[in-house]
């Protein structure tokens, strides 16, 4: 909820503010734009374009024949499976953590916010190493796991754990500000009218935070499908068994099977493009919502 004062002073960053001052020649503007675009071209656009050019260089035929090879299909399946497990679990955690942080004041609140960010700060290799130290043969739970004939490291469960670790903060990070902005008024009203906690969540809170949540899900999914470092440490990279698409890309490249590498890379690049487009749509929706309010 916005206060009246805020409603009257709607920030109009888009209108009128961007007019360049008269004292500054138009050439400065175009030189700066030129430098910015040149830098982005060298660092970003040419490498991005290269993925598509390399993948389709010999036409669509070889591209599709690479796509139907068995190791490749297994990699796709495994990538989807890992994301399908990691995504819902991290969503539940993210929503709980966001609610706990946004709806409560307690000593150490800022500390808890920073703690949730730790997985972003840690190198993916170190994240993978931690999981090996816990569940590996010489790890804390290693003897117990072996006694019960359970395999986590060099198997899918370890890769799921690694993915969950590196994507842990996204949902909470995106939902917290939305939840804070939405305020508690509507929830309190629902409670007063006799709604249960669950009803309040489904009917009031969830619709309020849906764009933030969706944004968090998009980012979690992109990282879950694209994660390389952490998954690589725990996977053992057994072709056809514990190889996700990003691992397939590296493996094919190292074995000088560059066309295969680019066939998989272009799929992942498509995933990235879809992520960016969805993100843009979500941002536009929230902006429109802001204006409407």
């Amino acid at each position, binding site marked *: 909820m916005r206060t009246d004062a805020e409603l009257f002073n709607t920030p109009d960053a888009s209108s009128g503010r*961007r007019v360049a001052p008269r*004292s500054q020649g138009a050439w*400065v*503007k175009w030189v*700066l*734009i030129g*430098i*910015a*675009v040149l*830098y982005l071209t060298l*660092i*970003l*656009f*040419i*490498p*991005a374009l*290269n*993925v598509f050019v390399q993948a389709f260089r010999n036409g669509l035929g070889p591209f599709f024949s690479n796509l139907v090879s068995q190791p490749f299909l297994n990699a796709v399946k495994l990538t989807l499976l890992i994301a399908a497990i990691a995504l819902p679990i991290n969503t*539940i*955690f993210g929503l*709980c953590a966001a609610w*706990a942080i946004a*709806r409560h*004041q307690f000593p150490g609140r*800022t500390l808890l916010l920073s*703690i949730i960010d*730790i*997985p972003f*700060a840690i*190198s*993916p*290799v*170190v994240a993978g*190493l*931690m*999981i*090996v*130290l*816990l569940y590996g043969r010489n790890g*804390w739970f290693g003897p117990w796991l072996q006694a019960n004939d359970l395999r986590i490291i060099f198997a899918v469960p370890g890769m799921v754990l690694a993915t*969950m670790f590196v994507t*842990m903060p996204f949902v909470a990070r995106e939902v917290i500000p939305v939840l804070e902005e939405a305020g*508690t008024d509507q929830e309190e009203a629902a409670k007063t009218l006799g709604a249960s906690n669950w009803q309040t969540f489904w009917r009031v809170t969830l619709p309020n935070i849906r764009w933030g949540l969706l944004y968090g899900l998009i980012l979690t999914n992109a990282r879950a*499908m*694209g*994660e390389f*470092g952490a998954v690589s440490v725990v996977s053992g990279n057994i072709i056809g068994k514990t190889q996700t698409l*990003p691992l397939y*890309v*590296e493996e094919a*490249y190292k074995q000088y099977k*560059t066309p295969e590498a680019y066939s998989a*890379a272009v799929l992942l*690049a498509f*995933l990235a*493009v879809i992520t*960016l*487009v969805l*993100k*843009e749509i979500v941002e536009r929706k929230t902006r429109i919502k802001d204006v409407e309010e």
Partner: protein
Amino acid sequence: MTASPTNPRPVKGDRSFWYRLTHLSWPWRVTWVYLSFMLFLPVTAMLLSASTVGPAEFWRIATTDIALSTYSVTFGTSLAAALLNGVFGTLIAWVFVRYEFPGKRMIDAAVDLPFALPTSVAGLTLATVYSNNGWIGSFFEPFGIKIAFTRLGVFVAMVFISLPFVVRTLQPVLQEMEKEVEEAAWCLGASSWQTFWRVLLPPLIPAILTGVALGFSRAVGEYGSTVIVAGNVPFQDLIAPVLVFQRLEQYDYAGATVIGTVLLLISLLMLLVINLLQAWGRRYAD
């Protein structure tokens, strides 16, 4: 956000700490259980494994010649990449906020590409583009400059991976900045340069530094793109995360744990620095 005065919930101040701990609502329980299991447990396991090595042995492994060289490559290159992005990221954010030009929206959206593109794909394409016969690498080849599979390649990958941080940290701050202050400076006869250095830059510095620190922290930990674009030659372009990976592949758990712990502690330190910078930025904004 200050919710405490507006929060109409009854304050449970009279309950003891223990009572509150045992009567947590279930979202709190999920949060704590998940954090304990997924975050505290692994970090503790790592720190305890490192401590079993013993301080003298820890120091010996952490400061072997090869480890020291990987730190210098990792931190030197990350810092250079983050600083370069500090300069160009500021310029890009400025251009996006202040100017209109065709294709701006698309270019703006594309800045997030390094967040969305899987790192192994980034490494693959950077290795191709910046190799001796690649689109960009071939321009440098006649001058005897090799980029891919050298330290320069690592640098390019780190620049790629840390680019969005400065831009995205700076954009909202620039958007908020009052145009009036700037115009006042012009009215008082300041030149464009003077206005930039004396009026515009100082309030942006906390945000620029936060972006640089975020980019640096990401570049230090980066593995996927750098392992592919680097030659991974010890003492030349071998970075610390790759060394951890190699130690683990050789079943040298002590070595992997010690160097991993050094990286972990530096990550946590960076997180602290970033938090302090953000607090500084908030104070500046008020």
